[in-house]
């Protein structure tokens, strides 16, 4: 509460009764500056001075990042800029050479991947990472595996506890499958579905546990424009319905500008810009990184 109060104190001319006032602030509709500051007080994800290198190749250099609750944050940059490395650091697949990762109120120098789901973090992968031999519904149910407690003997015997767990997970999976309009495909084997649907199944699997933080690595890659628009809508819906904070990597600048609240731009492992879509669009360093030299070619980026 004190953090909230100080965050408020910066924007509100409050005195002694700061704590009392702070309680009311979130209820004040449309008062964006205060509520933004309030949310920023405890970021869902924060990176401090993250550096990663492989041998002599630097993938990320002193990257800072703060993502507030409920935000859709895009990470963009040319190929090899370190975008996927960033997500791999957050999900613990890479151990950074330096720096710290903060998830909610936990700090890590190396995020323990096996506990990630328990922290409320889910992710998708750049190349599909579905379990190809399982049905769509079973894939989605896998997204709840970290909550399973019944042992294998109970599962074989079908004890009431194991059955309840199974039924609850199945219901949750069916709900998310319906939410993403996958019901008709839910009994199909995931590996036999067309690419666009597989991408959506992966999103469903990531969403089923209602994660606090969702990391999407090029969720729209390789899709047609219609598919991109549809999936963007689903991603936005997920944030609006479940309050999920989303960090996504995407190449399609047009989609990114529409979808995200704020954008971080990486180039050669360094963060070169951070801000709202409009700020990023006007940023000269970003234009240079994307277009090489050309000054005055902003129209292409802005289109």
């Amino acid at each position, binding site marked *: 509460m004190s953090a909230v109060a100080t965050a408020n104190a910066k924007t509100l001319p409050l005195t002694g009764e700061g704590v009392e006032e702070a309680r009311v602030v979130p209820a004040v509709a449309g008062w964006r500056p205060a509520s933004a500051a309030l949310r920023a007080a405890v970021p869902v994800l924060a990176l401090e001075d993250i550096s990663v290198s492989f041998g002599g190749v630097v993938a990320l250099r002193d990257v800072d990042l703060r993502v507030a609750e409920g935000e859709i944050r895009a990470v963009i940059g040319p190929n090899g800029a370190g975008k996927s490395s960033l997500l791999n650091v957050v999900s613990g697949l890479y151990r950074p050479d330096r720096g710290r990762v903060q998830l909610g109120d936990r700090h890590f120098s190396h995020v323990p991947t096996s506990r990630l789901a328990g922290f409320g973090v889910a992710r998708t992968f750049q190349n599909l*990472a579905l379990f190809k*031999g399982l049905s769509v519904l079973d894939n989605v149910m896998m997204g709840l595996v970290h909550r399973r407690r019944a042992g294998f003997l109970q*599962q074989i015997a079908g004890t009431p506890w194991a059955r309840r767990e199974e039924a609850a997970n199945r219901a949750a999976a069916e709900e998310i499958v319906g939410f993403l309009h996958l019901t008709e495909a839910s009994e*199909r084997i995931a590996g036999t579905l067309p690419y666009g649907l597989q991408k959506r199944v992966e999103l469903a699997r990531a969403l089923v546990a209602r994660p606090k933080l969702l990391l999407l690595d090029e969720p729209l890659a390789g899709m047609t424009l219609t598919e991109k628009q549809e999936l963007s809508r689903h991603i936005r819906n997920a944030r609006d319905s479940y309050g999920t904070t989303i960090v996504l990597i995407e190449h399609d600048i047009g989609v990114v500008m529409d979808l995200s609240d704020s954008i971080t731009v990486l180039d050669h492992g360094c963060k070169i810009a951070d801000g709202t879509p409009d700020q990023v669009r006007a940023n000269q360093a970003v234009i240079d990184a994307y277009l090489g030299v050309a000054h005055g070619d902003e129209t292409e980026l802005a289109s």
Partner: protein
Amino acid sequence: MPAPSIRASRLTSNHIGIALLLGVAYGIVPFTGSEYLLDAILTPFLALALAAVGLNVLTGYAGQVSLGSAAFLAVGAYAAYNFNLRIPELPFLVSLLLAGLVAALVGLVFGLPSLRLRGFYLAVSTLAAQFFVQWALTKFGWFSNDNPSGVIDAPTLNIAGIPVSGAERRYVFSLTIVLIATFLTVRLLASQSGRNFIAVRDHEIAAKVIGVPLLRTKLLAFGISSFLIGIAGVLWAFAYLRTVEPAGFNLDRSFQILFIIIIGGLASIRGSFLGAAFIVVFPLLLSRVGAALLGNVFDSGVLEMSQRIVIGGLIIGLLIAEPRGLIALLDRFSIRVFRKPRHANQQPN
């Protein structure tokens, strides 16, 4: 011989088929089958099928390659022999269960390298189990009650006071054990643990990120697999051969079980049974056909060579044309014949 399908909630033609097969297996075969059919074909078929189910849990479902199956057969056989010999008060079914548990424990130990090794390298490390167990059973006389060459003679079994003697009873005993074990395995595979196996097989990193406990899942696969193969080993030694030696559980036997699941169908319980039937019946057919066509030229040496050539060729052909094995061919065939309105993409188990 189909086992229940994984998604066994509705009454389907599949269930009727299983009920029919069970009716024949219990109601007709024991009374009409010749001693040769029961003793030399069906009983070894059942034991091999169970071993194949066990290996399929590990390799087909959980994606961990093993070349040590024969070692777990041997552990099961020798463990049951020793429980039976040294604690005679134990009912045989308890000894059977304990033998499976001992095999599972040995399997857990040899499954530990799977945390660091995969694919080919893991297969090589499971060879350690193969050679170690065979060596230990020959080296330490205690296991075989001090028989100089490690041979054990299985005593006649007693189940609840009824002696399991004669081909029919040994067959019915094996059938019952195999069915129960298969039924429980199917239940396991349809549960969350079974999904975890497939997740680890299909995408280990995604499985880890999502929260599948890799260590526990892999070890569970090794444990369950070795348990089933251990039980199969007890059947092999007590119901089929009745006199076994460590040399009978050599690398050839491990490969035979691996071939059963490759030919029958990876990640398919029904495939395990089909593959086992093929491996048992095929040499007999080949020798009949060969003798009829070539007469005396077709002696046992030629038989063995031609058998290896055909099986080798079949494996290569299947791996190229239909990696899901004979069961996938059979399913496609039966869909065409019976025109079942079934989802073409649904993968049967």
